[in-house]
């Protein structure tokens, strides 16, 4: 049975590939005839994505349709195997075919950088298509035996999938918190559990329990058994997911940011309250998401995305008045790769639409002049996810360093302000740029290079260091001219795990290990590095900081120890400091100036 199903799935898979290839050929033909220039790889990926979803749905719905159509169902049910084994022999080849098609998609998309419909929704996690494919398959499978009319079933499956995705994007969460709000996904990345627990899981459980007695008596008996399990499961799922979402989202709902001059900002996706000394001011941003990204002595900067106010807002530290610096509602998404170099703020933005074209935007904070540089022709073909990781000047000319992703490697490109670009390297790990030195990686390990007007020259290699994690994403500011040392780590910042700290001396280019540390490594511009240790407050179920140490010239010195305050409910450990809070007050410890402060909330 399994072999027969594998053969059938292989046939279906080939039909699918022939179909998408035919679409590709058709597109090429249209290009030739009409003189248009539809990008073939994008069309191919887009058709492939939609086709994959349809394939998943049809694959799930048609689990016994071939037997029904051929009148072979009675025969199949007499085969000497249990109902579940029969089901397994149907499901395994289908999952195999879907996995294979998905891997082909990943391969093609990875090689070409084409994103198809993902370009329309650039904020989606990369695994979203995978989840969509397998959830639609599971939904269709769960509904496949509830009725005999394929068209009706397809419509019901689509409708159920829509409801499922509606939940998936945190609709439930938004009802609880704010009423309908379409951007909630960004606030609640764990929201998928609502759709899964409330719809997908009950459907699957109901299907498998009803299938135990699957026979030829049609859908009526199946539905009775199906309903008996599904309805209570769905109610239970709704209650569980509501409770989970509410309990998890509640403490996360408010975010906090501690400025370097000791102002505390509480914010969520549409409101920010700034506590600065005795002054307090609330900024409403409609339906935008505010994220605090940068500060200088006079201002802090926020940006909002997926909103009518897509752009950069600056808030005066003295008056707490906000001022819009950049607003471009036509663009869909502004990456969080947003960095300042000598009063020029640079960030990446994506156009909405099929191809999701990306631009490097440079905003002069003094003159407000805006320069938008299209990355389409400047980055190597097939790039994805460009991020700015450095900036500098050579011979008085400013450049920005961008990394992108291609084939699990990181092409590094230097873009000059005159819109010229140099391809620098294909790094094996995320790069960094410090004091004129580019840190990238080849197969063996770290490579230090010096940037020249023409390109780069390798200065030193560190074979055997390939497992070091480099600062993938440098914080806040790119003026690293006076930095003499940087610190790396190895292993993850996972709770309870050790990291190994490494120091790179930018003058002597010596790399030394400073030993293990149970906690995380923090960096504050320009060259302050801290190590933070945590412990779990078992009764309150949150992580709290127990120790902060400063690292300077390879020496680790503890500067502050903390004990758990039972009166506090939560703690935020930010790059700028520590915030410990309960519902009435917040106590802060600032890493920029080591000041402690208490705020009334």
């Amino acid at each position, binding site marked *: 049975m399994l072999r027969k199903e594998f053969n059938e799935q292989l046939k279906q898979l080939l039909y699918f590939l022939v179909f998408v290839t035919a679409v590709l050929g058709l597109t090429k033909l249209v290009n030739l005839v009409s003189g248009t220039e539809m990008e073939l790889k994008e069309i191919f990926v887009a058709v492939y994505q939609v086709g994959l979803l349809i394939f998943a749905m049809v694959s799930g719905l048609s689990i016994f349709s071939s037997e029904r159509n051929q009148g072979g169902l009675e025969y199949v*049910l007499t085969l000497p195997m249990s109902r579940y084994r029969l089901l397994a022999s149907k499901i395994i080849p289908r999952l195999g075919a879907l996995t294979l098609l998905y891997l082909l998609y990943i391969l093609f998309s990875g090689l070409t950088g084409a994103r198809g419909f993902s370009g329309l929704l650039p904020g989606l996690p990369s695994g979203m298509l995978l989840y969509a494919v397998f959830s639609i398959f599971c939904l269709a499978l769960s509904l496949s035996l509830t009725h005999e009319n394929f068209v009706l079933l397809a419509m019901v499956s689509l409708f159920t999938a829509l409801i499922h995705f509606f939940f998936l994007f945190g609709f439930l969460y938004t009802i609880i918190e704010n009423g309908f709000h379409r951007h909630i996904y960004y606030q609640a990345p764990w929201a998928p559990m609502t759709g899964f627990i409330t719809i997908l899981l009950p459907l699957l459980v109901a299907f498998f329990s009803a299938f135990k007695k699957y026979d030829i008596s049609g859908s009526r008996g199946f539905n009775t058994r199906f309903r008996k399990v599904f309805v209570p499961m769905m109610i239970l799922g709704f209650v569980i997911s509501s409770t989970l979402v509410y309990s998890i989202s509640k403490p996360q709902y408010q975010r906090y940011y501690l400025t370097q001059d000791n102002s505390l900002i509480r914010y969520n996706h549409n409101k920010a309250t700034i506590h600065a000394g005795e002054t307090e001011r609330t900024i409403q941003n409609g339906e935008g998401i505010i994220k605090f990204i940068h500060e200088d002595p006079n201002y802090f900067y926020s940006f909002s995305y997926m909103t009518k106010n897509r752009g950069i807002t600056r808030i005066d530290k003295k008056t707490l008045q906000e001022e819009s610096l950049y607003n471009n509602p036509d663009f869909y998404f502004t990456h969080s790769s947003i960095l300042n170099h000598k009063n020029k703020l640079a960030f990446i933005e994506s156009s909405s639409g099929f191809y999701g074209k990306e631009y490097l935007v440079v905003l002069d904070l003094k003159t407000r002049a805006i320069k938008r540089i299209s990355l389409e022709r400047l980055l190597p073909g097939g790039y994805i996810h460009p991020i700015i990781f450095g900036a500098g000047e050579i011979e008085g000319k400013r450049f920005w360093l961008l990394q992108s992703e291609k084939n699990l490697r990181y092409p590094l490109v230097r873009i000059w302000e005159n819109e010229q670009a140099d391809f620098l390297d294909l790094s094996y790990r995320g790069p960094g740029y410090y004091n004129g030195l580019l840190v990238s990686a080849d197969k063996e390990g770290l490579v230090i290079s010096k940037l020249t007007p023409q390109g780069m020259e390798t200065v030193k290699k560190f074979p055997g260091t390939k497992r070091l994690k480099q600062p993938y994403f440098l914080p806040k500011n790119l003026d690293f001219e006076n930095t003499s040392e940087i610190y790396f780590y190895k292993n993850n910042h996972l709770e309870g795990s050790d990291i190994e700290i490494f120091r790179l001396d930018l003058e002597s280019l010596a790399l030394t290990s400073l030993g293990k540390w149970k906690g995380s490594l923090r960096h504050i511009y320009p060259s302050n590095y801290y190590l933070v240790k945590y412990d779990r407050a078992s009764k309150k179920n949150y992580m709290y900081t127990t120790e902060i140490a400063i690292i300077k010239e390879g020496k680790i010195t503890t500067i502050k120890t903390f004990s758990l305050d039972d009166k506090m409910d939560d703690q935020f450990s930010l790059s700028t400091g520590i915030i410990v809070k309960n519902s009435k007050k917040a106590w802060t410890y600032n890493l920029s100036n080591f000041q402690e402060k208490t705020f009334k909330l």
Partner: protein
Amino acid sequence: MTDAIIKVNNLNLDFGPRKVLDNINIQFEQGETVLIAGGNGAGKSSFLKCLAGVLLPKSGEIQFSKAVTAEKIAFLSDKMSFFQDFTLEQGIEFHCRAFGVDTFDDVLLQELKLPRDRKVRELSNGERALFQLSLLMSQKPGVLLVDEILHIIDPYLREMFLYGLIDMIDEYKTTVITINHTFSDIGLLPERLLIMENGRFVLDEKSEDLPNRFKKFYSTDRVDRDLPIIFGNESPLAGEWFVYPYQEKMAGETGYEFLDVELGEVVKSFIGGYYAKKRI
């Protein structure tokens, strides 16, 4: 009495609100040939499909003897259910693998001169029945369940089918349970007759006992209603009355001439009686 090869205990089956099988308790013995008959919707096919595992009962149990594993239960449905897009070769390969059959005996296929690359859907009904019978025979089945298919096969192929069936019974001591309404061909075959009505067996007799247990008489007069009459044709010219269970003393008590009844008439009278009761 030999041990039962199939024991059916308290078997119930519903289709929605409709009771299809009503608390059936019955046993079948090894090598027995059983004919099940009854009106449309009596539950015959459903019973057979429950035995084959195609339908799962609401309650009750069906126990097969240890020798009859799932691979040894063969079922030929009235729809001759099979993969129609398969060629005969593919069908043989699939069936043999699924049922753990080592060698396939293609005598029947050779007699029909059926090429193995022909698709199942291209076969005539009779060819399909014989093809599927040859598949089932390759299982060396302990139990063979055959739904109503004989009436759709032409007389020549029907005879071939029956010979195949008889070979199987002789060779493997197979218990054959078949549903049939065309009794002319099968009249001599069944050892036991079961008649179903409303999801229950209302007659369960060995064929050898049947002539003594089932009689008919003719009478244009008013008939004694104390007799166990299954069905009567109340005609002023030649009223025909069927009696079950018949006892010898009835002839003396009533004065009627009780005559032997053919298998087909037994079944027809039960079905007729069922419809007559429904009309009342």
